[in-house]
């Protein structure tokens, strides 16, 4: 193989890597595991067990008003679906730990409030907007993505999708 050929192949490989490094998480992608990504529980306890569960991973920040508005809706989802196997993991992307803790203390969510203090997970996922939530199937793959919080419309969609994931027979009716 000539040096020119090697250089060309190297350049193509580097460009491919660069393209993948910027890729947003899409439906069907395997969602990163929370622990190795550096996520911790704001309350100091264990991380929620997500293996084999339907999981709603919500990225929020204390400075994000729609995130705050979405918390009561997620509390209702938790009340309605936690017993059936839904796990909600609300991940703060706040750079200041104190701000995230104050927010969680004020809203007191019934589901685990987590903190991506190093912003490693959010950089892996490349969240396109705040808030963004990812609904994962029991296989850990992203099944649905919600950008922003649009009140009742978001809640309605989430309920349909959660019902579908908790009832695998209905899942085939989704595109």
């Amino acid at each position, binding site marked *: 193989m000539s040096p020119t050929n090697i250089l060309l192949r190297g350049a193509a490989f580097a*460009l491919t890597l660069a393209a993948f490094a910027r890729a947003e998480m899409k439906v069907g992608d395997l969602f990163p595991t929370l622990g190795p990504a550096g996520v911790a529980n704001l309350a100091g306890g264990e991380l929620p067990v997500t293996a084999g569960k339907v999981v709603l991973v919500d990225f929020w*920040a204390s400075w994000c*008003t729609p995130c705050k508005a979405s918390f009561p809706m997620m509390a209702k989802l938790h009340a309605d679906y936690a017993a059936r196997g839904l796990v909600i993991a609300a991940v703060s*992307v706040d750079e200041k730990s104190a701000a995230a803790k104050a927010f969680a203390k004020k809203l007191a969510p019934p589901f685990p409030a987590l903190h991506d203090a190093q912003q490693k997970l959010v*950089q892996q996922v490349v969240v396109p907007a*705040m808030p963004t939530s990812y609904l994962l199937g029991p296989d850990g793959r992203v099944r649905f993505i919600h950008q922003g919080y649009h009140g009742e419309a978001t809640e309605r969609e989430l309920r349909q999708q959660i019902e579908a994931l908790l009832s695998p027979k209905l899942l085939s009716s989704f595109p």
Partner: protein
Amino acid sequence: MKTRLLFLGVLLSASAIFSGCASTDLARVKPWERATLASYPMRPDRDPLHTMMNEHTFFSRETAAGGRGVGGSGCGCN
């Protein structure tokens, strides 16, 4: 050989330049990095007196008032 090396140089330079130009996040603050932009001092209406004076100037010049109903700060949420 020289021509091939020149071609390779041009190709690599173009790749480097255009991959940068094509990037949409070149100078964009990521959604999760907008805490400072979302803070109160970044609001255009943070000083009520200044806002009132601006509104008065606008009204005197345009004979029109209001229409500034865009809420929020710079976080770009939603």
